[in-house]
């Protein structure tokens, strides 16, 4: 576990979100044990581990979907508490779930503003939920969000999500997470169900997120994607940290070994 901090430092900007000593138990099962994690702005931090290693649990703790039994959260060095999804989104932590949760029957613009539709001025005598939606404003916003992430293949924000490809949907889901003043974006297996071309498209979007100074947490099984897009890699095993690698200093084989066997004292690249 000490090896982790050796790798953080000169190359990496100060961390934006830091969690220390996270414990989470489900009944008798210890899903996370004294887990540490951090991610900086302008960085893609990959989170890897075998099935049941605790990746998803850790992510859900960060998103407030689970509350940790023990552990400390720091945002820009300030201690914060994340007890519910609302806490997380108020702190600018957004999550894009694997199942995306888009409304296929609505168009792209409506999905991007879902739950916070812009309404026209001058109807203040009505409660918010009965004021007329400002569709044009909604479309302008959507156009901006799509442009920011450079989703080139999307022709119109007025097309229904049901007609989009998997890669486009992923991009829309990411755009929705980013649209809300977020600083940390967590992506759960964003390329799991995608073909080669669409994976490339999503990875482009992830890079755009990094370039726009977001802190990106990227969960995946796919080593090729991870090595293409990430700056650092945190490896979990049995709910505990194994190590954090700087991507450019390691190899897929080393990471796989760390995932499956843990760190061997003699192993070469583990510092």
């Amino acid at each position, binding site marked *: 576990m000490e090896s982790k901090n050796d790798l953080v430092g000169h190359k990496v900007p100060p961390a934006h979100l830091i969690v220390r000593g996270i414990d989470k138990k489900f009944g008798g099962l210890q899903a996370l044990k004294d887990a540490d994690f951090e991610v900086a702005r302008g960085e893609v931090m990959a989170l890897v581990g075998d099935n049941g290693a605790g990746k998803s649990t850790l992510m859900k703790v960060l998103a407030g979907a689970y509350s940790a039994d023990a552990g400390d959260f720091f945002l820009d060095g300030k201690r914060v508490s994340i007890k519910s999804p609302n806490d997380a989104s108020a702190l600018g932590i957004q999550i894009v779930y694997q199942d995306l*949760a*888009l409304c*296929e*029957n609505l168009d792209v613009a409506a999905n991007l503003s*879902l739950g*916070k539709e812009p309404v026209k001025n001058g109807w203040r005598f009505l409660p918010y939920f009965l004021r007329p939606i400002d569709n044009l404003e909604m479309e302008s916003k959507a156009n901006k969000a799509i442009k920011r992430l450079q989703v080139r293949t999307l022709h119109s924000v007025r097309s*229904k999500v049901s*007609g989009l490809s998997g890669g486009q949907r992923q991009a829309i889901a990411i755009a929705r997470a980013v649209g809300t003043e977020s600083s940390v974006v967590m992506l759960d297996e964003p390329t799991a169900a995608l073909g080669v071309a669409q994976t490339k498209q999503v990875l482009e979007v992830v890079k755009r997120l990094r370039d726009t100074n977001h802190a990106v947490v990227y969960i995946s099984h796919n080593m090729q994607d991870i090595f293409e897009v990430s700056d650092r890699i945190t490896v979990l095993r049995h709910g505990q940290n194994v190590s954090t690698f700087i991507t450019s200093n390691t190899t897929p084989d080393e990471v796989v070994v760390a995932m499956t066997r843990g760190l061997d004292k003699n192993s070469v690249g583990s510092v």
Partner: protein
Amino acid sequence: MQSEKKIKFLDRLSLLRETQFGAFLPVLFALTAIWGYFGLILPIHDLISGEAENFRAIFLSPRNIYNLFMQSAVIAALAVGITVVLLLGEIDLSAAATAGVCAALLGVLVLAGVPGFIACLIVIFVGIIMGAAQGLLVAYVGIPSFVVTLAGLLGYQGLMQKILPTGNLNVGDPFVRSIARILIPDIWGLILALFVFALFLFTTLRKQFQRKSKGLELDNNWTVWFQILAFGLIVISAVLTLNAYRSLPLLLVLLIAFTAFLDWITRSTPYGRSIFAVGGNAESARRVGMKIKRIRVSAFAIVGLMAAIGGIFGASRYGSVSYTAFAGGSLLLEAIGAAVIGGTSLFGGRGSVWNAILGALVIGSLGNGLDLSGASAADKLMVSGAILLLAVAIDALSRNSVGGR
């Protein structure tokens, strides 16, 4: 080759149904086909085969169209309400029974001397409570809406029989009767139609203009003008036809006004958007912080509201309340059929209340046309079943070809 073509056709069909105006086309087509059959093909066939001495244009006569609209009004009111719960992906089997209880209560109240206007308000309130009560069971207890409203159907049928032990009651209250009796003078009906048309023209063109000035993508000019022309043609010819027999009845104006209001609520407000979102993907709606349970309850309350209005319309039109006309008859199935034939998906998230009105016209035209051509009740049932099946098949196919990628 063949299957490829078929897939393409289905894709095109579902793409068409995704657009706002395109969703009307299948039901408009069905309506045209039915009117064409009963209004033109059947009379011509009779004429050629010598069954009739001369061309009998009874079906498309202004008098029959007038009756058709009035006959369909109660179905339409219920169908509009049912559409709202269908959008959520739920169903309401108790709407007709609710309408029956409301109509019976209205009859009893005015008989007891309560002024007609007050009685109507009370009945509307009761309808909303009856709907919302079922909504509470669906949303908070978690019983499937099919079961809750099936229980509601039985319970409310019983309740209606309790209120009307004889199963029949005349309603003579002048206020209640006036809803169906008052006719808008010809000239005012026409002015109203022109006004509505001008409003549609203005808002459509203004939207197009605003899009241009904001640099958003524009609607196809042809489509815009086609919509405007089609809308104007339908509204003005409907009023002219009604004027040719009597005049535009107040009841239809009220029905259209309620429907327009619900259309605005469901399509243009955050509340309506949340109905579509829950129907499309409830998990997604929950994650963005929508109050799903409250939305469900309110949707069932809207069905209750429209059922009460349907009950008032029925009592006003028939001048009486009977068990068979509401709770015990075919009204429920006709109303659900109207909503589905209109193109509202049983799977939730797609449809519009205007389609329910057109669907009600299809159901009403079928019944009316088959009656006129002397078909038996058995024929009517079988043809209605076939049309309903066709509508649901179109819904299922167009859903598969888009969703099944």
